[in-house]
């Protein structure tokens, strides 16, 4: 007996309300019509953005509007409430509402909008409070100018309360509706009918059944409403009141009266039924279905009550009543298959057939099942409508009814999918999961439902995606991949999942997905894109060697265009990154030639294409020169290569003087001239750098440019000498330059020169520089093996700055230094104290870096190393295994540390003879890091462990 809210309160009516209120505002503040149009359009846009779930952009749109039209603040309040509430910022929305003028039309609209948002967020209590506070403003009923808003809001509120199960509250809300003038007599009769239906439901509540006077009052109210409706003539509403009147009789325990009521009114009901049929209305609307169902139920109850009676006449009466009941039920099932009573009627009819056979030996021939399909199809339509209108509980009940009849009709997978989604909406996870698994397994073996089954399953996954329940959606996607591997969308879904993983920088998981597409779906149109993404992931993971064949394959898939050129550039970069300089150089040279000679063929002529070609040419020119500068073999050719590199840089500078790489190119050319013993030309280059790019980092630190260029060319020793030269004239350099130089040298393990550079930087009085320099000094000393010195320096740091932002890094280094000193300490007591200090320092690292996964992984690796120094090999092994087990290997930052833990643990497994654990660790590593840097070691370790185990080791 629930009437759907949208039947009377279409969504648009709320918009009309808002529009009405906005018109009031518009009248209050005279502005030009075009301005008002623009304001309305912008508000519509912002509201649309909220609905599209872009509240951040909606806020931006509103802000922009208010900058242009500050006077539109009040008008925009409703949208601002939508924005705030869609982000869950209800307190701010309440504050906004409080700031609005009390009693103003726009305030009421905003208040009700806030109530709607509470309801949409499932905050029924708050919705109720907001709505009631609106109604309570008018204890004696609404004034005429507000009556319409009041009435429509009360109606909406009644539907909310009904859906949330508060029937008493809903009835009160209906009473409020009735205090307002309704649009027409027809609407009034409709509302009265609904209210009478509700009264009957309320009368059946436990609170009422124990309170007879209150129950009687409500039932009388229903009767009075029915009388009012019946005065209006014989129509649908009239017919509905017949059912209500029969229910009223039943509520009073008068079953015979109820039956009589229906029988008396049957001719009139038949008229309404005929009217509907004539008007080609959906017969589900006919009240006849409910009346006949009710009648069938009454016959059945009477008939069943007489079963077992020894009086033969009574037995006959019982059988007759049951036969009459069957007749009513089957009529409903056959003639009104779309009505909500049909499935239950069918079930009851079938039940009575069994009873008649068992109790009376009467065989009743059931009507042909030919209308079963129609019944299912009609019911599915109904259930779907309920689902689309978000009436999930009723929709779920309907779907269960349908699927109990059959699960093999044409849209069955979608029915199961929607049932699963109803349960998701109802937060009934076990049922949602059961339905999802049923869906995954039920239709994957069929040919005619396979495609639809896969799609229906994906819809369930999407429902979880929308709720950002990623773990749950992952489970559904796994079911999909396992059960529907040949589904048409499988490659697209794999690809999309890969994209999602990339978005959260889970490159390893993304790579797995793209690789699956590339391996399993080479004929799919998404195949080339999968190759592209796969190459990107490999490059991100530093696996350029494997990226090269993927890029080559991808390039072969592409037709002539800028994308093809761009891929060639990626390929060249991959060659360069793996140290394959000659192939890289060839690719860059090829690119430059293509752009110059055949550019027109590759470009569609759009500004984007033209810009892209230019960028490709720019990168290729620069990189080609850089490649020449890296060539070293044969040594006799070196000057020639260097000259070629200079030539390349000059060509690049001529073509792209404004490039970001221009200062670097100038610096590199200067260095190359120096190497060729051409100081004058070198000087010219550095002068140009200082003059043409005075603000560039390179111009500010030419030493760094020279050293970095040499380092890039692989001339490490010469680079170190350049940095060491800084120490000869320290006055010429700033602390930041010493720090930068020290940092580079620490990276390449040139600890002694790094130490001297940091010591120079440490002379500064500027605290940030001093801290960075001291940390660098400590690290350099530790690198040199001067751990006791390192401890002194770092302890001094912590004494002076116990709360420095370098705390984690200082303690990390200090911990290791303590342990190294402890290991060399002969006095056991002192050694223990130092190891304790090492532990404490590491504890601080873990304490301060608990949200930094990378640092935590690093700290754990270091901790294990300290345990090794302490001689606690088993403890160290346990630490390494903890890292292998608990750190997510797909976390790109933690990954190197996890691999390092594996590598270091291998030695310990051997030393402790724990081959079982070694086998497990190797297998885990190979599974988690199929392309890891220690794959060969893991395979060898696995074989070694197997062989040892076979020979009897543990």
């Amino acid at each position, binding site marked *: 007996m629930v009437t759907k809210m949208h039947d009377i309160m279409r969504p648009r009516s709320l918009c009309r309300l808002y529009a009405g209120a906005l018109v009031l505002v518009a009248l209050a503040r005279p502005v030009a019509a075009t301005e008002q149009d623009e304001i309305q359009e912008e508000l519509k846009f912002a509201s649309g953005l909220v609905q599209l779930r872009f509240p951040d952009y909606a806020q931006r749109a509103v802000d922009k509007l208010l900058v242009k039209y500050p006077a539109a603040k009040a008008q925009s309040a409703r949208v601002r409430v939508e924005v705030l509430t869609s982000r869950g910022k209800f307190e701010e929305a309440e504050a906004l509402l409080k700031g609005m003028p009390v009693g103003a039309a726009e305030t009421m609209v905003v208040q009700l909008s806030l109530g709607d948002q509470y309801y949409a967020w499932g905050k029924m209590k708050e919705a109720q409070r907001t709505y009631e506070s609106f109604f309570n403003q008018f204890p004696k009923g609404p004034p005429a100018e507000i009556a319409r808003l009041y009435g429509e809001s009360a109606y909406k509120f009644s539907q909310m309360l009904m859906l949330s199960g508060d029937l008493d509250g809903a009835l009160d809300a209906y009473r409020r509706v009735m205090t307002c003038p309704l649009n027409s007599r027809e609407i009034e009769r409709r509302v009265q009918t609904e209210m009478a239906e509700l009264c009957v439901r309320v009368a059946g509540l436990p609170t009422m059944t124990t309170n007879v006077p209150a129950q009687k009052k409500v039932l009388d109210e229903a009767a009075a409403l029915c009388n009012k409706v019946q005065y209006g003539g014989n129509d649908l509403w009239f017919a509905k009141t017949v059912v209500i009147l029969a229910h009223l009789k039943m509520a009073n325990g008068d079953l015979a009266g109820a039956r009589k009521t229906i029988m008396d009114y049957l001719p009139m009901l038949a008229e309404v039924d005929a009217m509907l049929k004539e008007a080609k209305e959906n017969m589900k609307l006919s009240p006849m279905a409910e009346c006949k169902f009710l009648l069938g139920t009454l016959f059945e109850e009477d008939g069943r009550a007489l079963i077992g009676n020894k009086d033969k006449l009574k037995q006959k009466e019982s059988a007759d009543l049951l036969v009459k009941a069957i007749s009513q039920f089957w009529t409903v099932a056959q003639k009104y298959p779309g009505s909500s009573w049909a499935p239950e009627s069918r079930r009851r009819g079938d039940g009575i057939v069994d009873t008649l056979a068992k109790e009376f030996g009467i065989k009743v021939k059931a009507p042909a099942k030919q209308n079963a399909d129609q019944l299912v199809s009609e019911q599915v339509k109904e259930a779907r409508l309920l689902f689309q209108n978000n009436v999930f509980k009723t929709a779920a009940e309907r779907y269960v009814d349908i699927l109990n009849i059959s699960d093999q009709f044409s849209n069955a997978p979608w029915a199961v999918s929607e049932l699963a989604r109803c349960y998701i909406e109802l937060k009934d996870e076990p049922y949602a999961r059961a339905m999802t698994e049923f869906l995954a397994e039920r239709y994957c073996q069929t040919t005619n439902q396979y495609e639809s089954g896969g799609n229906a399953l994906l819809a369930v996954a999407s429902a979880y995606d929308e709720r950002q329940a990623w773990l749950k959606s992952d489970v559904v996607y796994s079911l999909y991949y396992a059960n529907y591997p040949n589904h048409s969308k499988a490659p697209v879904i794999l690809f999309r999942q890969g994209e999602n993983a990339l978005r959260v920088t889970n490159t390893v998981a993304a790579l797995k997905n793209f690789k699956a597409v590339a391996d399993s779906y080479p004929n799919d149109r998404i195949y080339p894109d999968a190759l592209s993404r796969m190459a990107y992931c490999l490059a991100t993971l530093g696996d350029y060697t494997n990226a090269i064949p993927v890029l080559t394959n991808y390039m072969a898939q592409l037709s002539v265009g800028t994308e093809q050129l761009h891929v060639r550039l990626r390929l060249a970069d991959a060659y360069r990154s793996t140290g394959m300089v000659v192939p890289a150089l060839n690719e860059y040279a090829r690119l430059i030639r293509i752009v110059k000679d055949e550019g027109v063929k590759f470009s569609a*002529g759009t500004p984007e294409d033209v810009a892209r070609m230019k960028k490709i040419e720019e990168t290729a020119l620069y990189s080609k020169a850089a490649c020449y500068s890296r060539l070293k073999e044969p040594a006799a050719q070196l000057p020639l290569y260097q000259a070629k590199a200079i030539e390349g840089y000059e060509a690049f500078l001529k073509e792209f003087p404004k490039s970001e790489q221009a200062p670097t190119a100038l610096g590199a050319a200067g260095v190359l001239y120096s190497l060729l013993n051409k100081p004058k030309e070198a000087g010219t280059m550095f002068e140009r750098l200082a003059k043409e790019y005075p603000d560039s980092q390179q111009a500010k630190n030419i030493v760094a440019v020279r050293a970095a260029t040499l380092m890039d060319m692989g001339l490490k020793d010469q680079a170190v000498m350049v940095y060491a030269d800084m120490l000869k004239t320290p006055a010429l350099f700033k602390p930041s330059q010493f720090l930068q130089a020290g940092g580079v040298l620490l990276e390449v393990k040139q600890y002694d020169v790094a130490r001297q550079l940091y010591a120079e930087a440490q002379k500064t009085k500027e605290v940030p520089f001093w801290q960075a320099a001291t940390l660098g000094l400590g690290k350099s000393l530790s690198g040199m093996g001067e751990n006791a010195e390192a401890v002194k320096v770092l302890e001094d740091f912590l004494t002076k700055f116990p709360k420095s932002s370098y705390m984690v890094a200082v303690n990390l280094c200090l911990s290791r230094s303590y342990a190294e000193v402890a290991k060399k300490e002969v006095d056991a007591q002192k050694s223990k104290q130092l190891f304790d200090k090492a532990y404490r320092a590491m504890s601080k690292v873990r304490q301060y870096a608990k949200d930094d996964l990378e640092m935590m992984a690093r700290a754990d690796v270091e901790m294990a190393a300290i345990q090794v120094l302490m001689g606690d090999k088993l403890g160290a092994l346990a630490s390494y295994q903890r890292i292998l087990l608990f750190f997510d290997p797909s976390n790109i930052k933690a990954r190197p540390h996890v691999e390092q833990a594996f590598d270091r643990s291998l030695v310990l497994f051997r030393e402790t003879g724990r081959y079982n654990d070694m086998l497990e660790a190797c297998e885990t590593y190979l599974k988690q890091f199929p392309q890891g840097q220690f794959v060969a070691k893991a395979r060898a370790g696995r074989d070694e462990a197997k062989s040892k185990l076979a020979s009897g080791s543990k």
Partner: protein
Amino acid sequence: MNRNNVIILAVMAGLLMGTGATALAVDKLKKISGEELAGVRIKWFETRQEYQVEGADGSIIPVAADEVESLDIAKPAEFDKAAKAMAAKQYDVAIPILDDVATRYKRLDWDGKARELLATAYFAKGDFKTAADKMGELIDNTPKNQLTEAQYVTYWTALMGAQRLAILKKSLSDAITGESKSLAALAVIKRGDMAKAEGRREDAVLDYLRCVILYDEVREAQPEALSKAADLLREMKHPREDDLRKKLMSQYPESVQARKLGGV
């Protein structure tokens, strides 16, 4: 000139063609009044703002420009040659021919077509300034109701390439506030492109989404707007980017953009 005149001219032309003058083309002019004139040649006189329909017998009928609804001028032989060169991406061959057609056929239909091709040629050569000039001339010299949306889009793209942003802004603004909703939708997208090119990525997203929300009835513009918004949001690592892709794939599965994503 009445219906008889038209018939006479046409008959004359037919006679001439029948007597071997097959090269003689028939140009037609339709007046706003509905009357049609045909002749061996139609000429345009700029200073007088007047067309002249020349009959095969040498007769000349002047028609004021504002009386003309449409023209049907025989295609210049060189035009196909230029089009072929364009197809072969031989832009330097096509340009002088098209320039010549645009000059000789001024206000005679083919000038517009030539200018459009010229713009395309300059466009492909990366000379956006000239491309914008050519499209500007086309737009200035063609009645608004005869301009296509594609021509506007080419014009805007050229203006953007030429960095004539003030003119572009004005033209887009006119289109957005103009009568054609579909042109407005395209203009909103282009305004988004402009914002994106200027690094105002959030403004760009707003424009693409504006097209999605306020111009949803312009279905042909939706895939581009959705895909551009999704791409940009992806660049900005916005969590809702995928929603737009899903919308694109489910509502416009046949669009180029959806197919590119692997939509069904």
